[in-house]
């Protein structure tokens, strides 16, 4: 990549992903409204929300860790974003494979957990406790599916996995070539995105929105920005591993919206699991599926 196009990509990439995230968020609210026979807000409603939050005149915070944590939250997500390959921009992916990405995904959660801890509100602490338990729940099957894929292709680099899928055409897509792993990862992805039935960390009526309890103004605004970037990021991870990556932006957007529609349809139908039920669901249904898939891969090559 030439230096100029690299610099342009570095600046434009998060903005593009943010806009995609706004559209995905607005699409989700419109979709859920239509399912409930309502009209629903505008397609770019998350953008209005972020603008409103960032333009608050008075902001309150509980201490310096609270401030720094918000920076860690968004900074960590931006850091992870650069290592995920998208069509046309794969420069940084050579320096970090999927193991790096899955660990980098932990930095925003840790940052937010520390900031919420400083707010000294037990609703926030309970929310973080649930968020971390959910993390232990969904990461285990998700990592096992990745280990299976990496073991089969003998590489841990996401670029290699994308190339292998694109070279083999539709039948080499992860979801078709190793279906058990793909389905297990899909269930884990629902947990990663905090969509129902795994939405327990927010639980507005029970713990006053959990981690967001004492966040307002620009703090909540940055949390929203982070969420709007994290949703396309995590969907892209799944697309790169199991849906064949994307060779053009049109194909990428189509895959994003189809996958997102599938996930939010499940979101509309379910209520919210309790945290230990959610973790048990992940470990009793998604994890055995992934384990069976991995054993299948081992028997094929052993």
């Amino acid at each position, binding site marked *: 990549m030439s230096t100029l196009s690299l610099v342009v990509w570095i600046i434009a990439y998060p903005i593009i992903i943010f806009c995609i995230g706004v559209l995905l968020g607005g699409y989700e*609210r419109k979709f859920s*409204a239509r399912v*409930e*026979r*309502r*009209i*629903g*807000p*505008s397609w770019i*409603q998350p*953008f*209005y*929300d972020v*603008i*409103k939050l960032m*333009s*608050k*005149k*008075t*902001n*309150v915070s509980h201490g310096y860790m609270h401030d720094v944590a918000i920076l860690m939250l968004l900074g960590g997500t931006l850091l992870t974003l650069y290592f995920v390959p998208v069509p046309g921009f794969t420069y940084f992916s050579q320096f970090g494979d999927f193991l790096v990405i899955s660990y980098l995904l932990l930095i925003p959660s840790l940052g937010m957990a520390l900031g919420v801890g400083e707010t000294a509100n037990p609703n926030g602490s309970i929310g973080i406790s649930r968020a971390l338990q959910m993390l232990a729940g969904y990461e285990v099957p998700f990592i096992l599916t990745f280990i299976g894929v990496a073991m089969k292709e003998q590489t841990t680099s996401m670029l290699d996995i994308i190339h292998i899928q694109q070279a083999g055409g539709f039948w080499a897509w992860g979801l078709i070539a190793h279906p058990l792993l793909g389905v297990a990862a899909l269930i884990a992805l629902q947990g990663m995105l905090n969509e129902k039935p795994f939405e327990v960390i927010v639980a*507005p*009526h029970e713990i*006053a*929105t959990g981690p*967001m*309890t*004492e*966040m*307002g*103004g620009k703090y*909540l605004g940055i949390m929203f920005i982070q969420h709007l970037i994290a949703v396309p990021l995590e969907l892209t991870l799944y697309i790169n591993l199991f849906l064949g990556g994307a060779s053009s932006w049109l194909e990428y957007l189509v895959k994003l919206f189809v996958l997102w529609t599938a996930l939010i349809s499940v979101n509309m139908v379910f209520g919210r699991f309790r945290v230990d039920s959610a973790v048990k669901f992940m470990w009793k249904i998604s994890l055995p599926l992934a384990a069976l898939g991995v054993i299948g891969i081992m028997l094929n090559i052993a």
Partner: protein
Amino acid sequence: MAKELTQKAAWDRVLAKLKKNSLWMLHYCTGCGAIELPPTMTARYDMERFGIMPMVTPRQADILLITGYLSVKTLKRVILVYEQMQAPKYVVGFGSCTINGGMYWDSYSTIKSLDQYLPVEMYLAGCMPRPEAIIKGFTWLIDRVGKGEANSWRDYYENYEFYRKNQEELFGGPIQSYQDIPADAQKFGILEARQ
């Protein structure tokens, strides 16, 4: 950097046009008027199409809905909640009880006129107002925010002595947790900045 930007009229107009589409209300249901909110939020009248969503904590909300009669005991908590909210914030008096006491006009324990104690942006008359009236009121409020005219929240900083005097007369002394409003006005530059 932020201060100069917000003092430019064009930037503020642009922001106001964007902000008006996303007002969040605090689910603080003080009296019987709150029963009209669920129908307004759900599918038949769908308040969400205006961008108005219920939010849980004062830190996250813009609109404080005082739904119905407000007893003196509750007013103390409402002031606590109001001061925890972040500017710009809009108090909406919902129902006739906030305007003139309504059905409880001769009660010893309710307040008769909300704007003695908090700066009110909008009143919705009715006992209680139906969802159509609520939507009409909120669209009026959204228009006002869009034009940049919804500035009653500044009144609390500018005329703090008036509000404080009325509150202390009613309660018989200061409540447990007052914020330092004049210091906040100083720190955030609210009295000097333009809208």
